[in-house]
């Protein structure tokens, strides 16, 4: 009986792992396909589709655009989230709960609707479709997240250290930059990192708000119109690699921290 349960457990786990990995393995395997269709039989390994990706200036410039939008929008979201979290945690403000609710509200609205709203607004005031427009949208989706993370980390013991710094003559901005920010750096890093991954992967807002210059997910979407193509596999595998690198970096930084 015990070993039967054990066996069933192992089979179930293997099946689910298989289901989870099936598309990823297929994607990466056929990115090394030598012929023009990413379907069985496998005819590789060949690096021709990776060469095709790196030689495609539309894709490489879209990749740089994506990184640029991700870094700038995440920095803005983290900064605004940090300031707001500090303000709400350290001072008694009227209607504080209502304002905090407003800042976290975008978390419950889908990206499609946030993108649609910005499209309608920008269209009516004549703000052109651009990378900046998409970046503004990315701050909207990431600000609530950064705020929630940082607000949850503002504890009483930090407030005491801040008070000590003030007693010793530090000005508010000095307290923030020299005392509060260094104490909260893991939470700041986590906010920035999470925002980066969401912005890097975001499609629909960028799709609605950019036109000529666009981000990588939108450019990959354009590639999909040509049907199944090993080049899409290659660029998809590269994006996966970059994301894994992000995650590993995150793991390393936090693993080290939790050990020390």
């Amino acid at each position: 009986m015990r070993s039967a349960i054990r066996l069933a457990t192992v089979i179930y786990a293997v099946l689910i792992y298989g289901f989870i990995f099936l598309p990823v393995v297929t994607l990466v395997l056929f990115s090394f396909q030598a012929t023009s269709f990413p379907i069985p039989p496998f005819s590789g390994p060949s690096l021709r589709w990776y060469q095709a990706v790196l030689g495609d200036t539309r894709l490489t410039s879209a990749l740089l655009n994506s990184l640029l939008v991700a870094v700038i929008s995440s920095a803005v979201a983290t900064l605004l989230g940090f300031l707001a979290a500090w303000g709400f945690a350290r001072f008694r403000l009227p209607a504080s709960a209502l304002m905090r609710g407003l800042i976290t509200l975008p978390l419950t609205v889908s990206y499609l609707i946030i993108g649609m709203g910005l499209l309608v607004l920008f269209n009516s005031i004549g703000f052109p479709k651009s990378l900046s427009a998409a970046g503004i949208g990315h701050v909207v989706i990431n600000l609530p997240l950064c705020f929630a993370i940082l607000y949850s980390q503002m504890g009483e013991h930090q407030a005491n250290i801040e008070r000590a710094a003030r007693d010793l003559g530090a000005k508010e901005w000095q307290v923030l930059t020299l005392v509060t920010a260094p104490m909260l750096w893991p939470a700041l890093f986590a906010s920035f990192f999470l925002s980066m991954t969401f912005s890097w992967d975001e499609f629909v807002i960028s799709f609605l708000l950019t036109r000529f210059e666009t981000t990588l997910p939108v450019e990959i979407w354009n590639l999909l119109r040509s049907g199944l193509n090993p080049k899409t596999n290659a660029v998809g595998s590269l994006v996966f690699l970059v994301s894994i690198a992000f995650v590993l970096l995150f793991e390393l930084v936090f693993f080290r921290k939790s050990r020390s």
Partner: protein
Amino acid sequence: MTQSANASGGAVPWVAVGPALLWTLAFFAAPFIAMALVSVTVKGGGFSLANYQQFFTDPSYYRALFNSLEVTALVTVISILLAYPFAWILAEQIPERWQRLALILAILPFWTSYVVRSYSWLLVLAEKGVVNNTLVQLGLISEPIQLANTRFATVTGFVHFFVMLLTLTIFANLKQLSPSYRKAAADLGAGPVRTFLHIILPLTLPGIMVGAFLTFVLATGDYITPQILGGNNELLMPQLIMLQIGRRGDFPLASALSILLMLVVTVAYLACARWLKIERA
């Protein structure tokens, strides 16, 4: 909640919270108001409720909302049924020191790009793709069967993503349970099945509800998965919205549909609200 810190700091707190508030008002609240205003006009005309009227009277429009709800319900139920035993295996059956690795592996494909993930399923489910190829080779079918561009494909793509997400939330929930609950139940004479039904399941219900709500919000609002995997045979709500912008540039109708979709999600949020409190640590 608010600490005993400075009760009032003059202008300082407003300088701190102001930018985030203004950003949210300008780029979240204002767009929403703009969308609401535009939704009660017709393209190139004045005030009109024609867009909402069209949605409720034209079957091809309200059908999209039903399709979305049906697909989401299917996805949520299947994902929970698949993820719960998997999370349980990870949390209870795997030795402690391998758990971290097992969990990281289980959610690794989570990090593939979202557009690429759907494309990968298209590769797997295509007419001459991996699944059809394998089935033909094994002699189980003689001709490839249509898997891509169906509701089945959309549901598969969604379930893949949400199994990973729900495994995470349920795993976290199971790990928080104290082993003494199980011991106490056993001491009082409950078997494994009764312990599960009366102790473990109710205690992990909040984790399941959080996961189910996330599934609901993310699946009803997603355009990519149904568009790439389901195709245009059967439209879901986000596809219908994008169709109004892409081909016709009909912002008023697209706005009305977006607001209706948001209302549906809000109702679901209110229904789950008691399990979804964001608390300060």
